[in-house]
């Protein structure tokens, strides 16, 4: 692929969002220098690395259905297809929305319903991005900042603690 075909971060987010709504169980998309692999099961370790230098480091792990990993490729050695150690999630882009209390994080208003927000969604500070359940009491969590959801950090129905990252929001550019 030509150099200018390398996808932007927003392109990737859009791609992942589209794939999220599809029926694929496993997806691998390779760009020049960037590979995107998504799975509804556990992501195979092999999906980790295809070494070619690339700029933005980012790992995305949307929770409920497809686990997605956008793997930036290490710059140095060219040992292809080496199963890299489980990629330490690099600093995600944007502002972290953290859990206001210990409890169970839910991404949807009810089981089976669409999540409050997904990667790529635009939110305002007042947008509800999830629920923390504490002893059957549902506590809505607000975005707190306007922008675009750039990454989901906590899985649906996951036990979280106070201060734990739930998702990331890339603030509005303007």
């Amino acid at each position, binding site marked *: 692929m030509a150099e200018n075909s390398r996808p932007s971060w927003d392109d990737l987010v859009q791609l992942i969002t589209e794939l999220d709504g599809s029926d694929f169980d496993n997806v691998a998309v390779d760009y020049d220098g960037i590979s995107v692999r998504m799975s509804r099961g556990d992501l195979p370790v092999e999906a980790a690395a295809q070494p070619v230098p690339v700029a933005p480091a980012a790992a995305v792990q949307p929770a409920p259905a497809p686990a997605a990993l956008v793997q930036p490729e290490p710059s140095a050695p060219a040992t292809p297809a080496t199963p890299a150690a489980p990629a330490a999630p690099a600093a995600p882009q944007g502002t972290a929305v953290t859990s206001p*209390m*210990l409890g*169970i994080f839910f991404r949807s208003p009810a089981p089976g319903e669409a999540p409050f927000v997904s990667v790529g969604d635009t939110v305002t500070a007042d947008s509800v991005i999830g629920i923390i359940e504490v*002893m059957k*009491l549902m506590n809505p969590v607000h975005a707190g900042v306007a922008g675009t959801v750039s990454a989901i950090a906590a899985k649906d129905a996951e*036990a979280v*603690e*106070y*201060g*734990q990252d739930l998702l990331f929001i890339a603030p509005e550019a303007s």
Partner: protein
Amino acid sequence: MSQQQGGAKPAAIPTVLVANRGEIAVRVIEAAHRIGARAVLAVSAADRNSLGAALADQVVVIGPAQASQSYLRPELIAQAAIQVGADVVHPGYGFLSEQPELTELLEAEGIAFAGPRAETLRAVGDKSSARKVAVAAGTPVAVAAPVADPHNAEQLRSLGAEVGYPLLVKAVYGGGGRGIRLAPDAESLVSLAPQAAAEAIAAFGNGELYLERYYAAARHVEVQVFGDGEGNALIFGDRDCSVQRRHQKLVEECPAPGLSAERRKILHDSSRALVRELRYRGAGTVEFMVDTQSEDVIFLEVNARIQVEHPVTEEAFGVDLVAAQLRLALGMDPELPEVPPVPPTTAIEVRINAEDPLLDFRPSPGHINTVTWPRGPGIRVDTHLRDDYSFPPFYDSLMGKLIVRAHNREAAVQALASAVARTRIDGVKTTLPMHEFVLNHPDFRAGSMPTTWFGPVWETHLKDRTQPDD
């Protein structure tokens, strides 16, 4: 590590959720480890790096620093207990230790609570119901005589003689210390009562009064109990906690000095009766006023929890009350012995607070650079302090407790005074200088002072200090 041994005991290692902070969190974690359990500590964001968090096998952050959004939320503690798979929750003292809500939430989830049943917490939780229980158990309570007619001098005189002087004239619907008058004798009672009734009507819309005996010089003596939940009680002696400032205990000791065998028997027997009446479960304390000017003993309240001053009892008798709480809650034998009413040794504790005793006990949180504790026989330190620790401003000022045990009271006082003098907490103001003063004071050395002793004595001491320069 797993044990492969077969036997009666379940193979699983129990998990204790510690729902508190500070020194008591450290104490409970140690007890959990002592009984072979896993300790999980629920912390606020401010306590992530506390000593307790370092000692626990697992830490969960339940909420922000403010206690109202963390340590004081029963549903967060219950949720944390579920999430970590706790078998038992130990609430420490303060915070949620006497809140029936937490007990009930845990019970619904099949998680044990290292404390009394919810119904017990309710029964002893407010003064009037606690008084009813005490009366039912035959425990001596303060006489409260309702005044039928505040203008009837004859009636007042006979009522006053019944209650005894000095006495307090109180408005039935008063509260918060308002509507209270002191009557030293019958004459003043007769002249005070009509005024008090008129004032009560004006202030509370109701002029009803009652008379209560006033004790100007009473000691605070309490009895340590441990109930099996079926009505049986073990009594672990008594403690004197009469060195107080504004109802805050500063120094505690076991046994209470200078108690006659008769009085001690009244205290212990009443406490035993209360445990039976309540079918009390676990560790608790029955507090009394012991008058120094008469033979009166008056029930104050039941503290349905482990108390700050429990170490003096543990040291004097050689028992582990916190481990016993955990064992009992887990359905195990608490492994506590029967002990005599008076322990074979004396143990004394000083509470070291982050307060400046020279400046009206102003709170003094801040960064602690280094801490040096004394060493020697019979010395115990219960603390969460460590070097390079920022003492948080969000919670109470207790930094730790220094406890010394010796073969008798004189030796214990002397050893503790020496231990206090060798304690160094560098970085913040502490109450250590005040403890040096108390432990070396002839009144304290003699023992048996009333709760009213410390305040004026300390004020006088401060005035007498010449302060020509800084």
